[in-house]
């Protein structure tokens, strides 16, 4: 019966050109191409040049890339990124899991807690950055005041090379733990109750149940959280870190993305910074690829 009526699709298959699709996709694709894809490709092209933004770009082949790997400041920024990711993974994930677990077991006020703990996600990173800059202020800030009252010397949270990164990580955790918690809650909610019931037959210890039943089944959500933490350290954190420390003091908080920005807009080395962005994307792809691969190797047997 359907074949008697020729829906547009059938007509289209005959003529081999889908006019509707062209109409539907042309504007989105055009915009996406000009303002997203083309710049991405241009970045790659620029990475093979030396360009100061004013005079014409000069083709220099792989020179930028070889310079990058011998650039101590770049290597430092890679180290900063690694530190950020490692610290994040070890603070955000356990915290998110803990709070998700508590929330799922909680009977009263679940919606309230979830809504409150998610609030920092609504704030612009600039606002967070400015707010926490005030909190961390070594003389006028509330923390400084608390230390003063306790008779202790004030700590320069953002201005000391040894702890400024840690201070930033505290702020970062404050911003994102609600997000990861929500993800883990979603994951936990999809674990069928039967598994818990049968586990209860084997053991009374809820800790054991958590580690042997819940955690393995949260593999996917933990993977998503991990990937987001990794990619976030390369993209989102630049706003927060820039506002709070500008990558200082002494590059102790200088992420790769911050070094790229400075090298482009302060040092006017557009070719060099483009090469760094290419390397950065390669890093992200490689790391995420490895992580996904490792996660997918773990098989769950019921």
């Amino acid at each position, binding site marked *: 019966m359907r074949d008697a009526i020729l829906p547009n699709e059938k007509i289209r298959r005959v003529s081999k050109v889908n006019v509707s699709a062209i109409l539907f996709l042309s504007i989105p694709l055009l915009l996406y191409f000009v303002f997203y894809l083309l710049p991405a490709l241009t970045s790659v092209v620029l990475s093979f040049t030396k360009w100061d933004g004013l005079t014409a770009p000069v083709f220099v082949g792989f020179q930028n890339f070889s310079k990058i790997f011998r650039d101590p400041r770049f290597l430092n920024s890679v180290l900063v990124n690694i530190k950020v990711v490692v610290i994040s993974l070890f603070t955000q994930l356990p915290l998110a899991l803990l*709070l998700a677990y508590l929330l799922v077991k909680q009977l009263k006020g679940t919606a309230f807690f979830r809504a409150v703990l998610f609030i920092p996600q*609504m704030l612009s990173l600039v606002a967070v950055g400015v707010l926490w800059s005030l909190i961390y202020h070594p003389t006028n800030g509330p923390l400084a005041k608390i230390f003063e009252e306790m008779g202790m010397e004030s700590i320069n949270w953002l201005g000391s090379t040894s702890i400024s990164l840690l201070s930033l990580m505290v702020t970062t955790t404050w911003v994102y733990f609600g997000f990861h918690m929500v993800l883990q809650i*979603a994951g936990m909610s999809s674990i069928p109750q039967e598994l818990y019931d049968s586990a209860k037959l084997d053991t009374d210890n809820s800790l054991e149940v958590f580690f042997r039943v819940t955690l393995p089944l949260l593999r996917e959500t933990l993977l998503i959280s991990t990937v987001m933490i990794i990619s976030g350290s390369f993209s989102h954190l630049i706003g927060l870190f820039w506002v709070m420390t500008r990558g200082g003091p002494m590059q102790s908080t200088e992420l790769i993305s911050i070094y790229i920005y400075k090298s482009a807009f302060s040092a006017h080395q557009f070719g060099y910074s483009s090469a760094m962005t290419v390397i950065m994307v390669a890093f992200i792809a490689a790391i995420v690829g490895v992580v996904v691969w490792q996660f997918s190797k773990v098989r769950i047997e019921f």
Partner: protein
Amino acid sequence: METAEIQSRSEISKDNLARWVQFSFLLLFSLITTYPLFWMFTVALKTNAEQVRNPLGLPRHPTLESFTQLLQDQSIIQYTFNSAFITLVSVVLVLILGSLAGYSLARMEFKGRGIILFLFLTVQWIPLVVLVIPLLVTVQYLGLYGTRISLIFAYVSANLGLAVFLMRGFFRSIPQELLDAAVLDGCDDFKAFLYVMLPQVRAGIAVVAIVSFISIWNEYFIALVLVADKAQYTLPLGISAFHGMYGTDWPKLGAALLLATLPTLVTYIFFAENFIRSTSRSVGFGGR
């Protein structure tokens, strides 16, 4: 169905203790989450002198002085307007273009569909830092440097990938019979899209609208690069500028921060569940 268990009194109180500990923990973290915001609020209500004297406590005589001072400096109104305009236009465009592209990728067949899908889905993960330099060049070349339109185009493109992904997912979940019925009634592709399919994905539209609204309203970095003229600043840029300008006038800073965060916070209070669910969905989970 649990079989009735007779608990000894010590077991019951252990249960209660556990429950209390859980609750306190959640309460503790709720406080940690909200206290900085609350503090920001109290700071905005103090005078500068009082803030220096008493950084942590509540204001003795709460005053709206900082707000009036802030609003006298017209710039924050300008910034808010810029942000509102840019965000509104961008979100609308993201919805329209995202729906169009998402629909065609979901329910139409044509050559190159796979490639285009790949472009939208995978390439969106490239961090914006990578695009910033060429984006600047492109924008200058098109004569759009420093305009709000350049930001709109940039934001729409940046959010299009996710929008297409989400809308495509929603469109795919509509049963084919609906489309068949529409065709039977004589609809062409566009009419079918507009009158039949689109109303079915209201949830999808909400998700995309919420997620892109938050992301665009709060965006800082691209704006930092593309906007030079202070009159065109968005709110995040303005806050950053205030931070530099009013470094020592904390109540004014607090007031500015409040004004910047109020729109998202207020909408959040009303739509918290939706926001949370949208975020879960945008990462790939069915709404919970």
